[in-house]
């Protein structure tokens, strides 16, 4: 069986074609908030059940409970607050109970019922979510750039965002049907924001060996400078799947969601989201969703001890490397040989090679994948 949605029910806050036009007109009369790309993506994720059981942005009690307990007030595990920030001037124009329109790129995409307006402490948020308030942390930096008040309440999405990679956009309802149609009962989900190297492939295949299907679900949307561009990641995976996976064992779709770089908390968030897509297992790498040296290498594994009721099984997979003596990709647990035989795949080294237009060796990256990546003039986010 595919996983049940988090909280038991897949949330649907979209509207029928019929009511779209009416709501669009109504929205034009309301006070309006202009959304960032990340917030617009959050709304789509709420509307399509990616964030089930959330039906909107967190109200104060839930916000505080997520910060303090890593659970919603209804006791369900939830680690990253999903919040909408507004400035003081806007706050003064609305009151609790109002309906407001949420605009993206000058179009109303959702209507929100304002349940609560409250101030937030960005330093507290940063310390609890990111475990630091160091402004050099990309998540902290973004947090401090946000506005000073939060509004909580349910949202109703009027229209989906245009998606440049529409062919690869699947919502939880669709992946659930897909898994069912393919007869998959055990599904391992793989989160990524990278082009695949041999280490990733090894980890995916290790998980696939004892499950029925592999769900590769890269994040697209805002990332920090130096990360790979969305298109590069998608094309690289196309090459990998085409050349190195049997037909019918991989489901590849994208998820438009901002990276928060919140390490352990974000690992749990990533797992919950994939549970909503129907996955039964979730691959958690070393330093999952980490950045710099803010998190210990295994913190993202330890945090799962707090959630026996998560409803998706985390798979803690060790870092893979090439061993000259074993003659293949292995990991710490299965290779007895000393360091001198081991060749580590370093993301930094790979990035440097790609920047210089050099072909990485085959033990680091499949040539078909490398060729695709190198075909881009500038594969990195700036």
């Amino acid at each position: 069986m595919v996983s049940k949605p988090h909280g038991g029910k897949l949330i649907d806050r979209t509207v029928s074609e019929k009511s779209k036009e009416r709501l669009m007109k109504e929205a034009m009369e309301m006070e309006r908030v202009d959304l960032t790309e990340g917030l617009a993506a959050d709304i789509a994720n709420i509307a399509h059940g990616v964030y089930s059981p959330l039906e909107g942005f967190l109200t104060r009690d839930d916000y505080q409970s997520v910060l303090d307990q890593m659970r919603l007030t209804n006791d369900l595990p939830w680690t990253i607050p999903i919040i909408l920030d507004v400035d003081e001037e806007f706050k003064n124009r609305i009151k609790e109970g109002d309906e407001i329109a949420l605009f993206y790129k000058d179009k109303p995409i959702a209507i929100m019922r304002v349940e609560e307006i409250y101030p937030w402490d960005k330093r507290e948020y940063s310390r609890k979510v990111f475990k630091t308030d160091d402004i050099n942390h990309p998540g902290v930096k973004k947090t401090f750039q946000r506005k000073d008040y939060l509004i909580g309440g349910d949202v109703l999405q009027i229209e989906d965002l245009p998606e440049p990679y529409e062919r690869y956009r699947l919502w939880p309802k669709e992946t659930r049907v897909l898994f069912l149609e393919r007869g998959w009962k055990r599904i391992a989900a793989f989160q990524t924001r990278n082009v695949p190297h041999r280490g990733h492939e090894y980890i995916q295949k290790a998980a696939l060996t004892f499950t029925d299907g592999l769900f590769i679900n890269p994040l697209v949307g805002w990332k920090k400078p130096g990360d790979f561009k969305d298109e590069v990641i998608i094309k690289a995976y196309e090459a990998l799947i085409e050349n190195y996976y049997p037909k019918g064992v991989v489901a590849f779709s994208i998820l438009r969601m901002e990276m928060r770089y919140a390490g352990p908390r974000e690992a749990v968030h990533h797992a919950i989201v994939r549970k909503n897509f129907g996955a039964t297992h979730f691959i958690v790498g070393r330093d999952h969703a980490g950045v710099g040296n803010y998190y210990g290498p295994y913190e993202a594994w330890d945090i799962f001890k707090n959630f026996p009721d998560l409803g998706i099984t985390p798979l803690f997979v060790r870092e893979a490397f090439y061993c000259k003596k074993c003659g293949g990709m292995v990991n710490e647990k299965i290779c007895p040989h000393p360091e001198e035989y081991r060749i580590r795949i370093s993301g930094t080294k790979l990035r440097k090679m790609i920047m210089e237009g050099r072909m990485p060796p085959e033990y680091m990256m499949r040539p078909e994948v490398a060729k695709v990546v190198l075909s881009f003039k500038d594969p990195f986010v700036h």
Partner: protein
Amino acid sequence: MESVQVLIPKSLYTRVEKLCKEISCEDVNELLVRLLRERVSEVEEEIFSAGVSEEEREEIVKRLKEKGYL
């Protein structure tokens, strides 16, 4: 975290207490909460259904075929 008191049979408490020592867990209360959460989420998942209607399923299958997934 805000708490409430519940009554459970003494014999059950003793049993859990014993189990707690066995697995070198430090706090009986913590173990109880953990066990309860595990079981409650299982029961919830059995009760709530996430199914889509047959009509909706057919529509989704069609879309998945168009996109090349099926």
